[in-house]
């Protein structure tokens, strides 16, 4: 009965979304006050029903109800509880339901709490949001019903893809989805504003928390995903420029640009058309990302979610939403009034530079990701675009962007002069120059890009705190601290990336128990190899002791795991984290004479990459709290003044 209840809740939610869209569309055309009043409760009800449906699916997974096809295909009763839970969205149907649930909840949230937006714009936004959801409801109900029963009922499920049996899975996809859905809200706002031609500071302030929220989740999602791929795949790399990684990076780049342009719109009422376009592009990138992952159109390590038929469905949705929004943009933006103007050397100028650089990087990643597809479609030839292209194309621009990021916050709004800026940024420039000099002298064999990256990171790290110079620290707004921490986080991540790419040392050996392997200052002793068993896997585990110089001895145990239900093998890398880097050990296959392929890396300061990512997200979080608090205070003040009058 639970499965049927879930399906009914899903149908109800879909009907409510249709109603929500109709109320908005007809209400706006006929200017019906009663329709406007009805749309908020409908949006809340839709959110509740779709949440109920999702909770019931989780329940089915937790109980391992083997009469439900989705549970059979993606779960097993012997699986640990956490993976039963996470398995709910570790598959196509469940993840689509999660997506539409988060969208429904976002709609309900806007309906309940949004008070500053013009009413017509709010109604148009909610209608647009419902319209997007409708596509996903149709997708679920027509072609991927998560509650479908199976008969005869099998004795055991097929288990979850072993690569996905990791605590990271409980966290990574939902985080990205929150990000994607946040961007869908920004998209709906932009569509709403284009329909009512109401683009201005108030609109930007209403949209900004959603953009910020989406951006925080995307940042966390990418950071977590990168770390997950790093330790779970056992390849020792943290970014492979894989199509699916790019699919998550592209919305982030667009969202980062949007985040900065929406600030110009909110503060100075400038960049109106550009901000609208970015909002459309940011959501397009999330949809395209989803499409690339699901359709299997590009070959990727994330090939577990592939189905060409579903690909066509998402492509159709993409055409309707994005094509529609872009047509609306072309028709309406010409009639939206231009925002205010500014000088080249100004805060706005720096933010425009930021936006242009981010857009070019986005375009380069986009082209690199889809180029193989284009070539194959035109000539039938197969090729792949690898890290050399991406690093070379985007690296220098990213460094330029970091330099702009250091200077931007030190500029005044509207107009400033270059001399004054040079004055304010002199110390960071000196720091960067000193770092460059020291590195060129002592660290030989570094690539130019890594060398510049490290030097620049030092300068940016100092510059990010420069906005606090001669300011009253206690009266500085929270969102300024947010910006400072986020920018500092970028510098930290940059240090990690440059250090990992320049100073990593690698050793590959066929070793047998008793052998010693050394890399950098590390000495590893291969003690023994033993079988071990987990809840749903068996493994061969290498017992090793590692010693850094003459320091303490650490036990590490890399494993080679077998998952009998899925008939697959994964390697569990052993990671040893020290303050100055990570030791990364992978156990490969053995021969029949007691030798094992062992791969060891010493990666200095690699952890800074993810620490930086977390700092960036933390900065975003502080900025959001600061903005929301200020918005709330201003509204209370306004209400107070109105009451007095």
């Amino acid at each position: 009965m639970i499965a049927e209840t879930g399906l009914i809740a899903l149908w109800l939610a879909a009907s409510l979304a249709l109603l929500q869209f109709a109320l908005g569309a007809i209400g706006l055309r006929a200017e019906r006050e009663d329709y406007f009043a009805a749309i908020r409760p409908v949006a809340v009800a839709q959110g509740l029903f779709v949440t109920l449906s999702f909770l019931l699916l989780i329940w089915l997974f937790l109980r391992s109800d083997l009469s439900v096809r989705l549970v059979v295909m993606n779960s097993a009763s012997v699986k640990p509880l956490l993976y039963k839970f996470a398995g709910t969205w570790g598959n196509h149907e469940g993840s689509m339901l999660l997506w539409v649930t988060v969208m429904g909840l976002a709609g309900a949230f806007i309906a309940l709490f949004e008070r500053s937006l013009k009413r017509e714009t709010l109604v148009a936004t909610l209608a647009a949001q419902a319209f997007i959801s409708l596509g996903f409801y149709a997708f679920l109900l027509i072609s991927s019903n998560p509650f479908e029963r199976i008969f005869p009922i099998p004795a055991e499920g097929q288990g979850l893809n072993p690569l996905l049996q990791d605590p990271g899975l409980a966290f990574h996809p939902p985080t990205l989805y929150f990000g994607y859905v946040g961007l869908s809200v920004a998209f709906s706002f932009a569509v709403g504003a284009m329909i009512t031609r109401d683009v201005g500071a108030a609109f930007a302030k209403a949209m900004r928390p959603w953009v910020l929220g989406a951006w925080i989740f995307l940042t966390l999602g990418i950071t977590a995903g990168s770390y997950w791929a790093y330790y779970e795949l056992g390849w020792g790399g943290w970014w492979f420029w894989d199509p699916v990684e790019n699919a998550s990076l592209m919305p982030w780049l667009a969202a980062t640009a949007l985040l900065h342009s929406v600030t110009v719109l909110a503060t100075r009422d400038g960049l109106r058309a550009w901000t609208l376009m970015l909002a459309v592009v940011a959501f397009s990138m999330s949809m395209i990302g989803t499409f690339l992952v699901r359709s299997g159109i590009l070959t990727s390590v994330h090939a577990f979610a592939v189905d060409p038929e579903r690909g066509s469905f998402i492509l159709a949705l993409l055409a309707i939403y994005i094509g529609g929004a872009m047509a609306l943009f072309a028709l309406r933006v010409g009639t939206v009034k231009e925002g205010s103007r500014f000088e080249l050397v100004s805060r706005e100028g720096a933010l425009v530079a930021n936006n242009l650089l981010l857009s070019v990087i986005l375009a380069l990643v986009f082209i690199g990701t889809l180029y193989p597809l284009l070539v194959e479609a035109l000539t039938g030839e197969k090729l792949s675009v690898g890290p050399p292209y991406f690093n070379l194309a985007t690296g220098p621009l990213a460094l330029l962007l970091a330099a702009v990021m250091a200077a931007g916050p030190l500029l005044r709004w509207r107009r400033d002069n270059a001399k004054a800026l040079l004055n304010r940024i002199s110390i960071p420039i000196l720091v960067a120059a000193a770092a460059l000099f020291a590195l060129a002298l002592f660290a030989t064999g570094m690539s130019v890009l890594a060398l510049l990256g490290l030097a620049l990171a030092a300068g940016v790290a100092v510059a990010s705190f420069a906005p606090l110079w001669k300011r009253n620290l206690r009266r500085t707004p929270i969102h300024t601290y947010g910006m400072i921490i986020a920018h500092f986080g970028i510098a930290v991540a940059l240090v990690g990336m440059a250090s990992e790419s320049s100073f990593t040392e690698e050793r590959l050996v066929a070793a047998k128990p008793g052998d010693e392997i050394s890399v950098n200052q590390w000495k590893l002793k291969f003690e023994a190899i033993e079988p071990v068993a987990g809840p749903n896997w068996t493994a061969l585990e290498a017992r090793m002791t590692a010693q850094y110089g003459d320091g303490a001895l650490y036990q590490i145990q890399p494993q080679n795991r077998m998952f009998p239900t899925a008939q697959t093998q994964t390697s569990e890398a052993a990671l040893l984290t020290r303050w100055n880097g990570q030791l990364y050990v992978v156990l490969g296959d053995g021969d029949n004479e007691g030798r094992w392929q062992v791969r060891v890396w010493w990666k200095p300061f690699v952890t800074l990459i993810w620490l930086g990512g977390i700092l960036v997200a933390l900065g975003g979080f502080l900025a959001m709290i600061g903005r929301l608090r200020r918005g709330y205070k201003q509204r209370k003040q306004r209400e107070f003044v109105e009451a007095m009058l």
Partner: protein
Amino acid sequence: MNRWLLWLPLVLFGMFFAAVAVGLMIPKDNIIESKMVGKPMPAFALPAAIEQRPALSSADLKQGKPTLLNIFASWCVPCIAEAPQLLALQQAGVEINAIASRDTPEDVANFLNRWGNPYTRIGTDTTSRVQLAVGSSGVPETFVIDGNGIIVYQHIGEIRPEDVPKLLELLEEAE
């Protein structure tokens, strides 16, 4: 702003849509062939992997007589499995050159002492740069190269006893 410019995003999106729609219709297959088969060996010069054997450069591979190029590593377990076949090929009069991938001189020397050394020349490729240029993505791999330095055939994985006749035949055809 020029009003026509506002249509640009839609046009670009239309192009994306068309390319992707065509891509969805093309059936997928996952067999990856080396792009280098039929092409001349890329130019390279690798230092010697061990003292007892000379270094390897692309010029050594166009001496007028067909050769085998074996890519191996001391840390590679299947490379041990193919060692007897390589020795047999050498005894049949085949010149075999090698690239040692991501290795150290001591490890290579130990490996060859233990499993036999069928190689005329051994170059060391510590960063896999030449390996990738040749179109090889793993170890072991073996290439048949004709007397003019053209890559004729790529064998992926270890050479099993049953593969030896085919390799000999290919070498003969390449004369």
